[in-house]
């Protein structure tokens, strides 16, 4: 531990460190591991008080089978996907444009607009709750995925703009100047020069927004109400209401609900971490 590379320290400390790592990790993830074990236990383990022991039999297929075939979870998962994916696309697309405009051009009010996005991103979103709910009702989008998607896009645009603008800002400005000198129109500069260079940022941001939106609970509760439009975070509460005290099923349900962002994170790990570094803020 410490910035001093471990290779430079003694052999025995290296061994200690190597063996300390899995121990620390297990402790750190203990709650999750417990849930994972819960999810493959038979229900008799809970009635017989065997909460923390090894599963007396492996019921993983059974439990997860219930989640997938005997509950509304698949519907909720589908809803989550239908909410998350369009939001990611919309927010990233919008913010590519705003980020480009704010990052490249010098015009009066640039900084003010930029700060508006940042400030908007940082407001406690509860303050938006009542007006946004009314707005959504008025638009006839209450309890629709569209309503949720539109709001998420708008709200995430603040953060995404901050992220994209800072990323674009870090691109060598000469590239844009070079293109200008070459007689390339501004929108073509955006499309052919800036956008391809933003690929890493787009990837990173997409993953980031994906997890944010997937894990959103508050707005799901505020703007939707039923199985036809609620995402899995809200769905899990009804699922849990349905299987109250059936810990094995609740665990399995939770794991299913948590899986997509986790999978996303693992697939796109590099981008994800890059994303945090680049944009670095939420």
């Amino acid at each position: 531990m410490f910035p001093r590379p471990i290779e430079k320290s003694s052999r025995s400390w290296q061994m200690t460190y190597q063996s300390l790592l899995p121990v620390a990790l297990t402790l750190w993830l203990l709650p999750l591991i417990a849930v994972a074990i819960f999810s493959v236990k038979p229900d008799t383990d809970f009635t017989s008080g065997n909460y923390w022991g090894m599963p007396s039999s492996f019921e993983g297929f059974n439990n997860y089978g219930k989640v997938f075939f005997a509950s509304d979870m698949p519907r909720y998962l589908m809803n989550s996907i239908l909410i998350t994916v369009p939001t990611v696309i919309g927010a990233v697309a919008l913010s590519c444009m705003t980020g480009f405009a704010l990052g490249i051009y010098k015009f009066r009010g640039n900084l003010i607009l930029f700060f508006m996005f940042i400030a908007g991103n940082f407001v406690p979103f509860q303050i938006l709750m009542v007006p946004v709910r009314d707005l959504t009702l008025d638009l006839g989008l209450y309890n629709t995925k569209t309503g949720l998607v539109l709001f998420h896009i708008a709200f995430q645009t603040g953060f995404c703009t901050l992220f994209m603008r800072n990323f674009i800002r870090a691109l060598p400005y000469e590239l844009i100047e070079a293109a200008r000198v070459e007689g390339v129109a501004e929108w073509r500069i955006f499309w052919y020069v800036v956008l391809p260079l933003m690929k890493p940022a787009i990837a990173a941001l997409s993953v980031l927004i994906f997890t944010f939106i997937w894990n959103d609970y508050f707005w799901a509760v505020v703007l939707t109400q039923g199985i036809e439009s609620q995402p899995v975070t809200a769905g899990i509460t009804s699922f849990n209401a349905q299987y109250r005290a059936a810990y094995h099923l609740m665990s399995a349900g939770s794991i299913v609900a948590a899986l997509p962002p986790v999978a996303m994170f693992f697939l796109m790990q590099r981008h994800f971490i890059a994303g945090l570094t680049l944009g670095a803020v939420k």
Partner: protein
Amino acid sequence: MSNAPQASARAKTFRPGFMARNRQVITPLLFLTPGILFFLFYVIFPVIQSFNLSFYKWDGLGEAEYVGLKNYKKLLTDRAFEVSLWNNFKWLILYLLAIPAGLFIALFLNQTVTGIRMYKSLFFFPFVISQVVVGLVFTWFYDPTFGLLNTILEQFGLEPLNVLGDPNLATYGIILAGLWPQTAYCMILYLTGLNAVDPEQIEAARLDGAKGWRMLWHIIIPQLRPATFIAFVVTIIGALRSFDLISIMTYGGPFGSTRVLSFYMFEKALSEYGFRMGYGAAIAVVLFVIMLAFIAYFLWSMYQDEKGAR
């Protein structure tokens, strides 16, 4: 070379059209318009509306009734509001523990041994998981009958604790649950920050005889300032926005002792016995004002950075 070229120069003098002359202004405007419209529509106007609404009494169904500052006056004597405010401060202070904790883990993991990438990712795990799930997991962890916590306490022969049922402990219990993903977040910020630490400075400090804690304190931490700043900002925001965990773990209880402003306003405005929109909006405004201090601080430091830049 005297007359003719000048004439032709004048002839060729090119008066660009309005578009061409203002290209550097119009282009960004076009690019910004959709984003700004969205944002105004869904974020900026609602904030203003909330301010406005806080001067009304409205049950969300009928007509709103203007009541002036009455909602705010009522806040002053509302015990639940006071509790929420206090809890918010507890959140603010204790949530900041995520920063040193994250730093500690980051330092621990900042090595190059085989599989370390995997470890780093796994340590980051809690942050990727929905707070709803985190809340559930910790509720079970604290469960007074079978929870792991009490199983462990029993091992040590200690009295069982009902963390979430004890009005003095519940908030801390929830904050601890919140610290788990937040620490992971700070950890990853610090890990990336550590990547950017100038190795030559560490070497210089080694030659200067700085070791261990002193190296950390005098050299490493100052260099991690950007990471710390961001960790600070996100932690503060996270603390003030805390809602999911409370909603899942205690629903504000026992008897309202774990409420924070964001939850209380939800309760007042949209929950089963609520629908006092104006009052809820007034709470939101208070929350906003608290946050404003941090937003202002953040913008100010961004402005300092921007001033020097291009």
